[in-house]
């Protein structure tokens, strides 16, 4: 079984963004970069599948500056069980939107015949939830989005995905694209010896020309970043005892805020 896992480097959600007004670009200099937490579920699932089958190869694919993603590829992917990596490093892709990135990933993935292509359900920076499913479309593969459970059969799979008020059970032949979320597994941590050994695994670095594609144009463009709408002051409810505070809160929600 040949599995590809697509990962993205994102700023840690603790990174501070303090905007007092709209700006055309964010100052990202203080951001700490990490592997997208959802992509870790995809990596873990790939490794689990390979372990279970006792056979297979896992290729991790990312788009980003090689110097910046190197540690992530080594520590979070190769050291936990991925076999090799492909890094698409092309300065012209800076600021590329989901569809442009999906086109680049599809070009990279087309170079081999993968049975499964795994993604995280979304990246925690732009929260778009698009790239995995767009890539499936560009590869002409079916997809099952936001899986919480996966069972592989010969040339096919059954995945479960949560929907409002229930769970959908989806059957698909392989090759197939899956987007992975929390609940699917518990990502393992890399051990020190494995991090050392990961340095020996092959990492291929290439740009769009190397993939034989033109740099795709983005169809969306961020015009500005703005602070979130201000929330009003918090009305702290003071009362002689907690029960009275609770009654006053219920009254305020009913009469002032008119919510209940």
């Amino acid at each position: 079984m040949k599995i590809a896992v697509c990962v993205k480097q994102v700023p840690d959600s603790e990174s501070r963004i303090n905007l007092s007004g709209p700006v055309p670009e964010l100052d990202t200099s203080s951001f700490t970069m990490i592997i997208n937490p959802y992509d870790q579920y995809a990596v873990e699932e790939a490794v689990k599948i390979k372990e279970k089958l006792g056979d297979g190869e896992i290729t991790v694919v990312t788009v980003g500056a090689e110097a910046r993603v190197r540690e992530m590829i080594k520590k979070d992917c190769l050291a936990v069980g991925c076999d090799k990596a492909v890094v698409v490093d092309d300065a012209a892709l800076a600021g590329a939107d989901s569809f442009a990135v999906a086109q680049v990933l599809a070009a990279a993935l087309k170079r081999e015949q993968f049975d499964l292509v795994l993604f995280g359900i979304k990246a925690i920076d732009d929260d778009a939830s698009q790239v995995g499913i767009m890539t499936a479309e560009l590869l002409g593969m079916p997809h099952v989005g936001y899986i919480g459970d996966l069972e592989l059969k010969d040339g096919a799979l059954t995945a479960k995905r949560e929907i409002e008020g229930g769970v959908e059970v989806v059957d698909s032949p392989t090759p197939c694209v899956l987007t992975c979320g929390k609940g699917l597994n518990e990502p393992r941590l890399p051990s020190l010896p494995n991090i050392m050994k990961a340095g020996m695994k092959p990492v291929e670095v290439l740009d769009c020309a190397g993939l034989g594609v033109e740099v795709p144009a983005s169809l969306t463009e961020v015009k500005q970043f703005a602070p979130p709408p201000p929330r009003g002051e918090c009305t702290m409810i003071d009362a002689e005892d907690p029960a009275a505070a609770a009654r006053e809160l219920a009254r305020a929600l009913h009469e002032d805020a008119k919510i209940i």
Partner: protein
Amino acid sequence: MPNIAVFIEQRAGQIKKVAWQMLSEARKLTDAHGGEVWGVHLHAASCNVNEDAGKHGAHKVFTAEAAEFDRYDSELWTQAMAAFINEHKPDVVLVGSTAMGKDLAPRLAARLKAACVSDAVGLSWDGGLVVRRPVFAGKCYADVATRGDVAVVGIRPNAFALAETGGAAEAATFSPGLDAGAAKAKVSAVETAAAGQISLTEAEVVVSGGRGIKGPENYAMIEKLAEAFGAASGASRAIVDAGWVDYSHQVGQTGKTVAPNLYVACGISGAIQHLAGMSSSKCIVAINKDAAAPIFKVADYGIAGDVFEVLPALTEAVQEIKKG
């Protein structure tokens, strides 16, 4: 002068409320800038969305009927929506950011080679579409412009208010041009949740518990308050990871995004990753014994108190009010 198509989603015989919210907002845009609002609806058996769609702002409602529309299928829905868009050429297509919409929108946009923006909370028209959406865990908003003939835009449920300012909508049908053979991934079954459970992402009120409830046995206290409100019950990641409640209840960056009218956070500190999932709620109530907890920074009402003392009394007070 945009013509705006709104995908009217149906699941298990129910139209999603976000469809009416999108029609209401779209109508505001076309009233100001020209153009029309079109509802688009796929259905298996007889359907009657016209009246409601018109009331909420649709000028026209296009429907397509096929036995296959009985149960959601990514490929077939993509085919049908692409067929509609290619035939009628709307400038903007709005799709609710629901389980179905998040699955459909990227596939549809990629097939059309169209711009795609997800989870929008604001729309404006400035010579072209500008979409406002939260990014970086809601720490800031991005205003996104789109290029191309059509843009597919996902809309966060509850982001837009309902309006009933429309009238009668003209009814039309379209051919979905289905090629069932191309659908490889198939939904083979739908397991429905226990009856009476309110879906977290659709609930008008959400009551969530965090580590302040001290142990799994006390989550019942959260559920009781939720029941009094007619609310769904949520949780912080801390108590999901501790195994006190199922992951399906988790609100936040690695859980669900909710935007209810009322969010009640009980014993939750208000970490940025939790705020990411709930800070666009209309009204936020925080109950936390630490008056300096960050959750109070986003709250509208707060009680600095012990959940074990406040919640039972609050449950009773809400029951009283609900009784009328």
